[in-house]
């Protein structure tokens, strides 16, 4: 009786409209324009795969993608072991563990734009803390152009992204660790398993879901990094520190090549979708 057609439609319509107009129609509009020569105004002519072919020969785009992959790899190599290690130790519930957890989580709630602003003062080649600390301890040789130079920026961005999100991923791991029943550990102790064996044969297999979630979220997060680059180097010098996303933004909004930028956006979409679909398959079970 409450589920008459009128009520169902009334309840469903607002979300459906918002979502359809802003997300679905917009996504398809970008996909559509990626096959045209649309410049933002005027008529759009269908040009087939032209924009995508151009991507393959655009050296800056290839450089941007390789930067994105560097960021992804660097942050991944830091995030996975460190956040798991933090979670593993936090799971012992030592005195002060909740404070440690909260402190490590802090960077995650700060706006990426502010994170970038802070880190400039650590990474800047001349006034930054890192290079000056190296000089004082006599390790000038290790000084680098951490940001703004020709090569190091994506590595630094990967470190900053890892710094920002490690505490978050640690709590996801921790939530997983809490689900492992202590009886299993006790039983294995009686059987004579050492700490390493417990970790390898009990803990890791039992938190497989958490590992998948962290991997997917970390990869997705790294693919979508925008503010850190925008704020620290704005892709410079000469587009050398651009990522796929920031270069797309530049092409679309700074040089007005809308259809070409759309093709890049579609590439980013496909990359994100692959990882997110894995995530959804893990969290979504059917309604009934």
């Amino acid at each position, binding site marked *: 009786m409450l589920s008459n057609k009128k009520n169902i439609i009334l309840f469903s319509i607002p979300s459906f409209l918002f979502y359809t107009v802003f997300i679905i129609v917009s996504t398809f509009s970008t996909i559509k324009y990626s096959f045209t020569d649309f410049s933002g105004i005027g008529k759009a002519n269908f040009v087939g795969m032209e924009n995508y072919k151009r991507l393959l020969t655009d050296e800056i785009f290839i450089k941007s993608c390789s930067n994105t992959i560097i960021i992804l790899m660097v942050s991944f190599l830091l995030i996975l072991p460190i956040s798991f290690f933090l979670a593993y130790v936090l799971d012992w519930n030592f005195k002060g563990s909740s404070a440690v957890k909260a402190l490590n989580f802090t960077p995650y709630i700060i706006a990426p734009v502010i994170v970038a602003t802070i880190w400039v003062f650590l990474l800047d080649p*001349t006034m930054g803390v890192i290079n000056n600390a190296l000089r004082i301890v006599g390790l000038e040789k290790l000084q680098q152009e951490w940001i703004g130079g020709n090569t190091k920026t994506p590595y630094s961005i990967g470190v900053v992204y890892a710094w920002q999100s*490690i505490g978050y991923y640690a709590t996801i791991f921790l939530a997983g660790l809490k689900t492992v029943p202590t009886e299993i550990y006790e039983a294995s102790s009686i059987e004579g398993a050492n700490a390493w064996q417990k970790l390898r044969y009990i803990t890791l297999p039992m938190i497989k879901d958490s590992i998948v*979630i962290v991997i997917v979220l970390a990869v997705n997060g790294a693919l979508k990094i925008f503010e850190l680059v925008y704020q620290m180097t704005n892709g410079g010098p000469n587009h050398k520190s651009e990522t796929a996303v920031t270069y797309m933004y530049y092409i679309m909004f700074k040089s007005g090549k809308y259809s070409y930028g759309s093709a890049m956006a579609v590439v980013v979409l496909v990359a994100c979708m692959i990882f997110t679909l894995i995530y959804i398959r893990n969290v979504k079970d059917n*309604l009934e």
Partner: protein
Amino acid sequence: MKKSKVYYVLLFIVILVTLLMIFPFVWTIVMSFKTDNDIINAPLALPKVWNFDNYVRALKTLNIFAMYKNTFIVVVTTQIVSLVITFMSSFAICRMKFQNRKIKNLLYTYYLLGISVPVYILLFPIYRINIRLGVLDTLWSLILPYIAITIPFNTLLFVGFMKGFPKELEEAAIIDGCDLIHLCIRVVVPILKPVIATVTIFNVIYNWNEFPFAVTYISSSANYTISLATSMFKGAYSRDYSAMIAAAVLIMIPQLIFYALLQKQIIAGMTEGAVKA
């Protein structure tokens, strides 16, 4: 865990990691008291005198009241609308009897698809929608897309949670003569409180910090959100680094205090948002 040597070594490493994690914050606060000259010429020295000049200059350039007001309006409006409409649509998906059951599952999957859409693909089409609606460069140009962006994630959480509680309560309320609106407000919403909290924490932190939409759609400084105003620091303070750092601290501190007060809920909410879904 018995307290062996390894236990203390690992604990020590964790403390070291934690110190590294908070160092950038501590350092920023220390720097905010230094003069420009000291920041450039003696980057590692502590401030000679702890003065608040930097903060005075930062506040002169920064329209801090407007930034907070704008961000607050955007976040709160988005959140209220989003909660109401995603609650309604999730309730329909989960609790109402569709004539064709397939439509339910289809609708649910349709919403979930949105989770994988990166905002960058939406920037230009929504830019054009904003122009057509005549809201470009107003706070509405952010509120409308923010609402849309929250729908997939909130649907996932609402539906996931609603599936888990028994229908008997609602049925009893209906037999007692409760109509749909009262049923939702008096019976269903109270049960959903925990998931509403989780969703709100997730959305608010995301929207409070959001940048790509803000930088694309807002151009008048009167409408700057906090993130957008921060991105303009380089231009606003040119080479006045000390004022720039003080401004960053001024923006961080309220957020850190808010986090300190609610850290248990925030951490739990953010984690549940990712894990339980």
